[in-house]
């Protein structure tokens, strides 16, 4: 027996410990947990592992417990979002590791559903799942989560991930026909882009009922006998919905911007003395300001002010916001520019703004690809031309002025 053993024996034979020591029984007694946690040395240990935990799997914070079904235990999820969920939402909205923000596909439940409870189908992007479950308070339902590779319903439908094939596969994989009697699924309407209801019926025997666009209408939908009214079927694009898309739009810019600005600083230094570091810096900063102005105008202002900016084409809307930003840049540097430089800065701001605003079409729920292509055939040559003229003017100015 070493020193440590002697210490333990002395410790536990004192009055401070009143339970059986684990050395005597070899087991951690469940009923005497709190007593056992009184320790002679150091701080008390953390709680015992939950009986719901399984080797090789981590219990997720949004799982309340498990419901027994003919097909094994089904996780019952909370219908109230908590700290980790809100944090996860924030990180996803910033575009950080978005494609990994997902949950395992399969069958989940809320409340205490039985064989007659509705089955709601959704995507395995955790933001989608959270958006859904927070609207299911007081509801008893099954939630069938499809493997959409962590992508939201509508985008996944467009990419053939929220698809007829995946619906049919997931029904089979979860043995859903043993869980519910009614053989009916409620799908979010925006899944219709990728799911053919009559084909699902043919291949799985399950009938697809098209639910509302927004999760927040689900309880109202079910109360109305699983019927949608017009307002439940229409997609909106409010100022808030547009604004939350901005961080992700901006997150695509750092990498290309680094190279663009490197080139810009270099070109700014070209002049009568061949190359001047001083000019590269000071003129480069002015060009950088115009560039940033273009970004703010095209990727921030244009999305927010979208319906109020004249023009149907986004590239045109970007021109308007770009002109405003460009004029602001000129006012900022007034007196320090010759006309060629002023023209160059304005063209850079407008060109960048127009291009970024045009790019925003890919994030909207109402621009058609045919329309975007038509717009781009006209806009891109003009944007490229503007930037080219700007570059020529900018470099020439160093020789003229």
């Amino acid at each position: 027996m070493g020193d440590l053993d002697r210490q333990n024996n002395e410790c536990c034979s004192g009055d401070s410990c009143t339970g059986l020591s684990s050395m005597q029984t070899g087991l951690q007694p469940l009923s005497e947990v709190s007593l056992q946690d009184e320790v002679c040395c150091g701080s008390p240990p953390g709680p015992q592992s939950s009986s719901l935990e399984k080797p090789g799997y981590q219990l997720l914070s949004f799982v309340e417990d498990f419901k027994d079904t003919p097909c094994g235990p089904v996780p019952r999820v909370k219908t109230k979002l908590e700290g980790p969920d809100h944090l996860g939402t924030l990180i996803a909205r910033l575009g950080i590791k978005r494609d990994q923000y997902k949950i395992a596909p399969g069958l989940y439940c809320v409340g205490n559903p039985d064989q007659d409870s509705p089955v709601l189908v959704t995507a395995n992007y955790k933001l989608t799942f959270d958006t859904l479950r927070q609207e299911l308070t007081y509801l008893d339902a099954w939630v069938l989560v499809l493997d959409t590779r962590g992508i939201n319903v509508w985008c996944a439908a467009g990419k053939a991930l929220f698809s007829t094939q995946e619906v049919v596969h997931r029904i089979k994989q979860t043995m859903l026909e043993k869980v519910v009697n009614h053989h009916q699924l409620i799908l979010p309407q925006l899944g219709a882009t990728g799911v053919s209801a009559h084909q699902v019926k043919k291949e799985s025997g399950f009938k697809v009922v098209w639910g509302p666009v927004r999760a927040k209408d689900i309880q109202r939908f079910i109360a109305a006998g699983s019927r949608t009214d017009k307002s439940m079927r229409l997609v909106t694009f409010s100022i808030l919905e547009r604004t939350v898309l901005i961080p992700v739009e901006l997150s695509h810019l750092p990498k290309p911007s680094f190279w663009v600005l490197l080139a810009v600083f270099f070109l700014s230094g070209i002049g009568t003395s061949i190359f001047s570091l001083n000019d590269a810096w000071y003129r480069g900063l002015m060009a950088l300001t115009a560039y940033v102005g273009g970004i703010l105008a095209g990727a921030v202002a244009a999305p927010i002010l979208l319906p109020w900016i004249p023009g149907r084409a986004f590239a045109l809307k970007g021109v308007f916001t770009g002109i405003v930003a460009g004029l602001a840049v000129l006012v900022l540097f007034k007196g320090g520019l010759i006309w060629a430089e002023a023209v160059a800065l304005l063209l850079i701001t407008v060109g960048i703004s127009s291009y970024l605003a045009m790019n925003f079409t890919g994030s909207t729920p109402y621009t058609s690809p045919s329309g975007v292509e038509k717009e781009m055939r006209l806009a891109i040559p003009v944007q490229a031309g503007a930037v080219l003229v700007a570059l020529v003017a900018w470099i020439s100015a160093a020789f003229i002025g």
Partner: protein
Amino acid sequence: MENLRYLEGVTTLELDLEACVGCGVCELVCPHAVFQMNGKKAEIGDPDGCMECGACAQNCAAGAICVTPGVGCASYIIQTWIKGKEAASCSSSECC
């Protein structure tokens, strides 16, 4: 969303009235109320409201609707110009 309208006269949406059986599913799945039922047939009430999402064509059991939903993303379309349609891809998983 009444104050948000895009370009006019560009949609590829087509409805074959002869094939239409009047089931009404197109009206049910369209996110922009492009279709409305007119008696026993569907009709395209607002063609310029169409964003070519393809939900209608996907769910028309009678095969009366066709539309060519593309990607609608500027970066992707530029790729099809430079590399051609075959080589263009949504390569980055961070894209959308």
